[in-house]
């Protein structure tokens, strides 16, 4: 603790860089030590975000892959970064989960130092900064492409952003998906999406889209009925963050596959 000459701002990331640089990743040094190819690391696959009447809904499958193998069957990809924001990760799981953790600490740190939370726009920009910092790692194959969603209490609406590796952030008005199965999830949502949908309608749309992604993309995990592992779905509204129960998801999933079942000829 330094009273006089210590860092005096509200950013946890800057505090780490200035006073605890050994706790931040030094990509130059890390990659200087890397000879040849980076070993295989776990990758998260498909996540989806959409806006509905009450706010935003974010969902992800639970599979992490390492090349063509399963790395983890029940990984968490949808993180509450504070009481009114969600981050969903796709890409290299290690750096992405670390990024979500750092983001959560950054929001809390700012709120405690200043006595007020960041606006949702400020939170989205903070994540853009983190992704930009990760660019050297992305160039080596550790790409992190998250979705960020939340409830904007100032504008009283749900908002959703997607990012690219350069830190570019793009606000989406309807829905978006990133990860290996995202092409199929987006195609699915293109047909099913309705603006201002109810919570139940939105839940059905994202589960249909995840089912479509899992159907076409080998990297995306569907519902694992043997182990009872279901996609993770969270909503962010004026009431805060809520997780949809597995039993509700199982129920809707059952009705989706019942509707798709074809008799064997």
């Amino acid at each position: 603790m330094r009273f006089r000459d210590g860092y005096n701002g509200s950013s946890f990331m800057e505090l780490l860089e200035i006073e605890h640089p050994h706790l931040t990743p030094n990509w130059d040094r890390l990659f200087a030590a890397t000879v040849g190819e980076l070993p295989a690391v776990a990758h998260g696959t498909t996540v989806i975000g959409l806006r509905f009447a009450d706010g935003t809904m974010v969902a992800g499958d639970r599979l992490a892959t390492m090349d063509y193998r399963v790395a983890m069957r029940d990984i968490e990809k949808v993180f509450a970064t504070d009481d009114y924001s969600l981050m969903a990760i796709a890409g290299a799981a290690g750096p992405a989960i670390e990024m979500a953790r750092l983001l959560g600490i950054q929001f809390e740190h700012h709120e405690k130092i200043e006595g007020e939370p960041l606006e949702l726009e400020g939170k989205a920009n903070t994540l853009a900064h983190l992704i930009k910092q990760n660019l050297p790692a992305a160039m080596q194959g550790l790409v992190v492409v998250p979705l960020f969603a939340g409830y904007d209490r100032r504008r009283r609406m749900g908002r959703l952003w997607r990012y690219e590796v350069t830190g570019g952030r793009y606000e989406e008005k309807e829905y978006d998906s990133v990860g290996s199965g995202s092409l199929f999830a987006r195609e699915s949502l293109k047909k099913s999406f309705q603006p201002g949908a109810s919570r139940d309608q939105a839940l059905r749309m994202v589960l249909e889209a995840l089912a479509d992604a899992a159907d076409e993309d080998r990297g995306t995990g569907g519902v694992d009925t043997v182990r009872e592992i279901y996609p993770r779905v969270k909503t962010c509204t004026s009431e805060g963050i809520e997780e949809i129960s597995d039993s509700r998801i199982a129920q809707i999933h059952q009705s989706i596959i019942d509707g798709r079942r074809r008799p064997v000829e």
Partner: protein
Amino acid sequence: MAFPYYVNPEQMTQDKAEFARKGIARGKSIVTLEYDVGILLLAENPFKLSKIGEIYDRIAFAGVGKFSEFDRLRKMGIQWADVEGYRFSRDDVRGKALANLYSQAIGEEFNRSIKPFEVEIVVAEVGDPQFAGHEANALYQVSFDGTIQDQTGFCVIGGSDDAMRGHMVANFRPGLPLGDALRLGRDALQMAENGSPELAPESLEACLLEAESQRRGRKFRRLSADDVRDLLGA
């Protein structure tokens, strides 16, 4: 080069202590007390600048004296706690360690600097009923010279607090419901020499560390004037 005069260390320490005490006595006192399921921190403060703040999941801070000094100490505490929690885990951030750091930082300032800090602070930590060995609440009081005291039940900081402390000693009971604890704290604040005899809910800054709070990890909550009014009326 000017030759430094000899200064009697005893005299200097006394002068500094007197200076710090005077500075602290100008401000209003703060009372911190345990209630049945948490800790209440209460100050007379009708302004927007807070004297009480959240440090970490189970830890809160309250300071009296010079605002710029104790607010910087509050921020240092948050910085330390967040780095500690990031480096290790959230459960590794402990009030005792923070209180010791404050004690050292304030004590060093008292010894080395011509002008000591004109502050007195409290580090409150609410216990975790699920965490064996950490069930109990803790209140650490750190004075302007770095003296640290581990208080049980309640703690009063600020200069003109003899009447307040007397009222607390006479009336404090462990396990008070929140409404009773709030009334006791307010009555004590009203007895402070430089306090107001009639404190409206709008003039109180009241914060809680709620042991059973459902909020993810963070047990700190700032009560609004309406919350305070409801609780006082109940």
